């Protein structure tokens, strides 16, 4: 303890001394995910190159971060120079002129190297408004040892019927093994992300072309029933408060047979330092409905953007360009191993044989991202874009509210029919309040 204290004091003093005169200080708001923490740790490398830019970090848990950043940008508070935001926010905020355009990022930046699916989601009228830091789609992660024990083999494109069968056979509650883990915690970025992707794959949609909510449709009924059936019979206890992180911890400690979630989880579950099951993990595409090809179209990226109100645009841009460059990827590869390079953004990474060899999840991740069509997510025609979300400003509100209703159904306090009719009425209410159908 004393050593740490002394080290801390020393570090503080050194940091104070190290700031060169005339340096510009930028404030970066970011989420406390592993890749961002790593970026924070690599700051000395950035400062070696750019001694005139000091970076202050505000690292927050995702929900708090989103609330802080949104409040700040919408009131033009101007507390941050660089924001970490999702591909849900980028087009909406860009249209409000809240974000500074990110063109001319330098000669070596190679913006064309970004995966088209990822870059398109960040581009409004031909201009990019945010630079992708890492991107993910969704896939199925499963335990090869448990599947083998159950006497099954994973098909190339598993469908929901197979998932149910496998979940049943893998579950061994007395040993604390649950066949399937899925998100149950309420939130538009938590259970609703999963359920929207799942509903896409099962032919449901949020709205018809007249913006009428569709929770009274048989497709949604089938989706929710399928979800509740899987989770109540083969899921872990407490599923209604499990989000991404909770499920990750469950999977890492060997409690889950299968888990459908963000591809970025693959790096964590296959890391032997953190995961007790790293030797027995394999990957498959997000399930489809038997006979169909829609894999849910989940696409998420965490991106760095600069608020239009920032008075330090140039310094902020220098930082964003550095953090999303090929050079940064090389730096991570050199310091922490190539497996830990932020995934899903640059095609050059997936052309690198060294990466493909080191990371078993590389190809499944790339395939998942490339199959995610956010322009027409559902099997039916829809008036919106976005994969596991609906790209309208109102979605946070309705997504969170519907998420609460579905999480109550998972906890067993309402039935699926009650949940669907509650969802239908509250979404209708919110949409009419927001003035839909527009024009």
């Amino acid at each position, binding site marked *: 303890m004393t050593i740490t204290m002394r*080290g801390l004091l020393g570090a503080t003093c050194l940091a104070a001394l190290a700031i060169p005169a005339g340096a510009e200080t930028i404030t970066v708001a970011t989420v406390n995910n592993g890749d961002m923490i790593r970026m924070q740790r690599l700051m000395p490398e950035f400062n070696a190159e750019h001694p005139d830019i000091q970076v202050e970090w505000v690292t927050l848990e995702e929900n708090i971060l989103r609330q802080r950043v949104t409040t700040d940008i919408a009131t033009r508070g101007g507390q941050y120079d660089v924001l970490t935001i999702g591909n849900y926010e980028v087009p909406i905020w860009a249209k409000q002129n809240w974000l500074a355009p990110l063109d001319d990022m330098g000669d070596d930046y190679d913006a064309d190297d970004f995966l088209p699916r990822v870059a398109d989601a960040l581009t409004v009228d031909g201009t990019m408004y945010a630079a992708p830091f890492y991107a993910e789609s969704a896939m199925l992660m499963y335990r090869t040892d448990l599947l083998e024990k159950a006497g099954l083999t994973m098909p190339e494109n598993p469908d929901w019927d197979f998932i149910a069968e496998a979940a049943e056979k893998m579950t061994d509650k007395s040993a604390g093994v649950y066949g399937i883990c899925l998100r149950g915690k309420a939130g538009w970025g938590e259970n609703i992300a999963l359920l929207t992707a799942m509903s896409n794959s099962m032919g449901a949609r949020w709205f018809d072309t007249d913006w009428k909510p569709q929770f009274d449709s048989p497709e949604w009924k089938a989706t929710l029933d399928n979800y509740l059936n899987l989770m109540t019979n083969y899921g872990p206890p407490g599923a209604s408060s499990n989000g991404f992180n909770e499920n990750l911890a469950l999977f890492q400690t060997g409690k889950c047979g299968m888990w459908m979630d963000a591809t970025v989880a693959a790096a964590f579950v296959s890391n032997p330092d953190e995961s007790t099951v790293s030797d027995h993990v394999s990957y498959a595409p997000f399930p489809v409905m038997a006979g169909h090809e829609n894999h849910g179209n989940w696409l998420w990226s965490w991106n760095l953007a600069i608020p239009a109100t920032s008075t330090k645009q140039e310094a902020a841009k220098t930082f964003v360009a550095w953090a999303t460059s090929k050079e940064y990827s090389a730096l991570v590869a050199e310091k922490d191993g190539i497996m830990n390079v932020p995934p899903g953004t640059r095609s050059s990474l997936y052309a690198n044989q060294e990466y493909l060899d080191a990371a078993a999840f590389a190809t499944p991740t790339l395939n998942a991202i490339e199959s995610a069509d956010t322009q027409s997510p559902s099997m039916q025609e829809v008036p919106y874009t976005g994969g596991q979300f609906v790209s309208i400003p109102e979605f946070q509100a309705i997504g969170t509210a519907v998420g609460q209703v579905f999480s109550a159904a998972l906890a067993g306090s309402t039935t699926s029919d009650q949940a669907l009719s509650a969802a239908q009425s509250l979404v209708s209410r919110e949409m009419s309040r927001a003035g839909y159908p527009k024009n």
Partner: protein
Amino acid sequence: MARASTTQRKAVVTVCAWAVGLVIFFPILWTILTSFKSEVDAIAIPPKFLNFNWTLDNYHDVQERSRYFLHFMNSVIISLGSTILALIIAIPAAWSMAFVPGRRTKDILMWMLSTKMLPAVGVLVPIYLIFRDFGLLDTRTGLIIVLTMMNLPIVVWMLYTYFKEIPGEILEAARMDGATLSKEIIYILTPMAVPGIASTLLLNVILSWNEAFWTLNLTAANSAPLSAFIASYSSPEGLFYAKLSAASTMAIAPILILGWFSQKQLVRGLTFGAVK
């Protein structure tokens, strides 16, 4: 015979009291223990009580990631600053209520307390806009102002109940001797009320230290105290119990130690006039 039964009784009481005390304290103890475990040990079933590999890694990680010392200093400055400011405003007010009560005094006191019942979330956006316009976002000054206002009613009330116990004749005697009002308050009343002021100060430092809504919403990098620092450890990817425990221990340790050392002073004035 009588003595033996007293000893027996004392033994029984001791065992019961210790058991209850340990149960109540257990969550804190568990957090502190967990902070010295590896992440894998932290979630081990059955739980490991002392038989794990003690490590300082979590503290090291937290150090490396956060500027703990900055957050710590912010917490100290904000909680002390707001409490002292509140005391400066409240002492005259409490004097007035205790020694020259009017018909409305009680109503004013009750009204003051009722301002504490306003839900902070309802006024965040207005406050945010005001702070933006006055350049108070992410400043310690801004937070000191907000927390002063938050705690002022409680401070006034505690001091009032304390002052009321002081016989007015002593102050009157001083006035007869020609002391001005400010002298009377500073040199006669305040020294007499030191225990009450001390416990008011302690209670409000604790409340300000633990305030987590305004401190989180009005700060960014510069003025964030420990309550905001915790938010960066709350649910990251992967296993996090041990790191969360380390960060939690670091956030609560200063105030816990202060509270323990000063518990006598704290308790003495905590009676709110309820003890005669």
